[in-house]
């Protein structure tokens, strides 16, 4: 409704509610509704109520772009919280840049991107993958690595980074095995057997899994059935959270690992409060929380704070006031928005418990700042991003001292 636009501030929610990604994204829509609801109870923002505009891009990437455009031009939303897969983000990116909108992206991703209009509240590879590998190397004394992933950009990039990183640490070629599977792969018999084989060469072996989405359940079921125990060959995953574990019998998976910036099991008052609200909001005391939810929690609060600081929802003003905003995260610290539009986060390594939760076994002592351009890729190691004026550049080359990548 057009008149309502004056006394409410609209917030777009762009998460798939149907299709293959609904399984992950629907929860994020719900958590956004809850956050908006709570904010309204606190009196809204700038004295106005927030109004959520929910659309369903249906796991269809061009539809993401179309819906983003619709949210920005038709509904005139002040900010959009959404996307899960990288491709959906890539699809909407030009739209947000063209129409100068704001997107909060809550999922861990491969990095190599920094847009003025996007705030990346999920983990960059250095906030998840690298610390996880470090943990395995130091605590589990792993010498041999299986990098298993779904065949798409995030695993490919992450594995490239990890491969470079591992080789830098002296791991030999023959001790790294990379394996890719198609989306939704469901027959893991041979691959798990292969992992077992690779792991019985006498050296301590671990699996770094960037297996995506639906394929995880059959993968873990097969791991359990073939009796691969965490104490023999631990699997550390970057895409498996509480929500995914809810679909699996975790007893055989005791001790397998995940690296995130948040676990539901984290014992802080603020998290307990969040979980309580969440269960109340969804009227389901079995509902679990997970890392991307926390990312939205942080992103939303940052946005609220930035808007209050700017005194307006006008995009340029909000973008400028976002940087440096710091809000409590759910693990007991504060996360801050960096000039590169990524945030600082602690990195937690957790082991799967019988009840489907993670037990934190390691936590970085401080916060890790998100690094958009990986230091382990030759073409991006010289790049930085800083959206503060006067630099205001997403791909500044420190070697050439120019904005715009390495070429110009």
């Amino acid at each position, binding site marked *: 409704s057009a008149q309502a636009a004056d006394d409410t501030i609209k917030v777009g929610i762009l998460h798939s509610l149907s299709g293959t990604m609904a399984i992950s994204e629907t929860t994020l829509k719900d958590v956004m509704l809850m956050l908006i609801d709570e904010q309204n109870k606190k009196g809204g923002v700038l004295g106005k109520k927030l109004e959520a505009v929910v659309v369903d891009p249906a796991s269809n990437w061009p539809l993401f772009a179309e819906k983003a455009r619709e949210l920005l031009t038709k509904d005139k939303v002040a900010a959009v919280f959404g996307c899960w897969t990288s491709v959906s983000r890539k699809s909407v990116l030009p739209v947000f840049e063209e129409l100068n909108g704001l997107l909060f992206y809550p999922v861990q991703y491969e990095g190599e991107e920094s847009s003025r209009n996007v705030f990346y509240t999920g983990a960059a590879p250095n906030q998840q993958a690298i610390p996880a590998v470090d943990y395995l190397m130091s605590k589990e004394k792993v010498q041999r690595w299986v990098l298993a992933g779904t065949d798409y*950009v995030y695993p490919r990039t992450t594995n490239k980074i990890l491969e470079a990183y591992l080789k830098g640490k002296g791991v030999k070629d023959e001790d790294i095995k990379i394996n890719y599977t198609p989306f939704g792969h469901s027959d893991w018999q041979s691959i798990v057997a292969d992992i077992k084989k690779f792991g019985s060469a006498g050296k301590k072996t671990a699996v770094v899994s960037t297996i995506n989405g639906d394929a995880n359940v059959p993968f873990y079921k097969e791991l359990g059935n073939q009796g691969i125990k965490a104490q023999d060959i631990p699997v550390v995953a970057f895409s498996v959270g509480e929500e995914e574990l809810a679909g699996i019998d975790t007893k055989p998976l005791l001790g397998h690992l995940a690296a995130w910036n948040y676990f539901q099991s984290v014992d802080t008052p603020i998290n307990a409060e969040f979980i309580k609200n969440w269960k109340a909001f969804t009227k389901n005391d079995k509902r679990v929380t997970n890392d991307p939810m926390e990312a939205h929690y942080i992103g939303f609060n940052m946005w609220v704070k930035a808007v209050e600081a700017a005194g307006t929802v006008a995009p340029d003003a909000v973008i400028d006031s976002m940087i440096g905003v710091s809000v409590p995260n759910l693990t007991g610290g504060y996360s801050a928005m960096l000039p590169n539009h990524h945030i600082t986060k602690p990195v937690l390594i957790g082991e799967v418990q019988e009840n489907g939760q993670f037990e934190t076994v390691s936590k970085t002592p401080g916060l890790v700042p998100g690094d958009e351009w990986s230091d382990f890729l030759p073409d991006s190691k010289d790049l930085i991003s800083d959206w503060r004026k006067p630099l205001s550049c997403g*791909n500044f080359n420190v070697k050439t001292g120019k904005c715009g990548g*390495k070429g110009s």
Partner: protein
Amino acid sequence: MLTRFFLMGLDRKAGLVLTVLALLAVLVPVMTLVVPEGSPWHLSIFSVSLLGKYLCFALLALALDLVWGYVGILSLGHAAFFALGGYAMGMYLMRQIGPRGVYGNPILPDFMVFLNWKELPWYWLGFDHFAFAALMVLVVPGVLAFAFGWFAFRSRVTGVYLSIITQALTFALLLAFFRNDMGFGGNNGLTDFKEILGYDIQAPGTRVGLFLATVAALALSYMIASGIIASKLGKVLVAIRDTESRVRFLGYDTESYKLFAWTLSACMAGVAGALYVPQVGIINPSEFAPASSIEAVIWVAVGGRGTLAGAILGAVLVNFGKSYFTGALPELWLFALGGLFVLVTLFLPKGLLGLWAQLTARLPSGKGKGAPNGKTADQKGM
């Protein structure tokens, strides 16, 4: 000869379709570029792109209807040709980015840079020229369709068997294009385009231009298709749909007829894909997904199989419904859409256009409304 050919297909229905397209071609630019914003007659650029997208789908539906409705080849893989055309255009657009990519590499697209590729793969060569890319839009789907069809038709693969191998084809391409090693950007596909033929791809003028190009392509394809159908060749095609073997015994080499229609249809689909990509701004392997192809079949069925206008209508309406419902009923739209499909099948056996025909026809065709025992020509094959 050519004019006669085009005139042959011009009956009343065709006139109507072409008039509507012509109206669109005049009204849309005026309403977006001339009518000031704020006027109720103003059309936003967003709607133009949306309309353009629907028309691209309409062209795909038209191409599909040509082979399905008239030759009886149910392709469950037509989106493959659409996507290939799209990729050809996407590669051109990618090359146009030049040094404006995030890494500033003037030659290599970003995804190749961060995967450490050192030089452009050979199959990317030439795509910096629009003319070459435009040619590839036709050639790549065309050649694939020709090769595929040549084998399949010669081996007399028909019916569901043909449908399923077209599905296998698009599925295989989907998996292949997902692979980063293929050099097409993997799952992320090709995106972040900057300009086309030197025009800023986001600019309203360019968008309207793309829209007009789509209208023109659709109109031309419509005329070609209806010309073919009205010709004797069209009658042979319909006869093949009905009883292919009988056509052979009359001395027609049915394989070459099928191959002709099939390849032409693939080329049309390729053009549709090529026009689609700059308007939606991304091409990604999921366009190859079997479900996309099936959806295209659904558009045709909803509109009315075997009527070109129906294919266009079905594509536009279903996609409009999808756009509308996903915004208006985000949690329930699948019920709405699914229900629509069921109802159309049950109550409009000849699709939406069939309804029109049912209402206007003086002499109903004599075939009962899908009574359980009704036996129609459809029974013969897919």
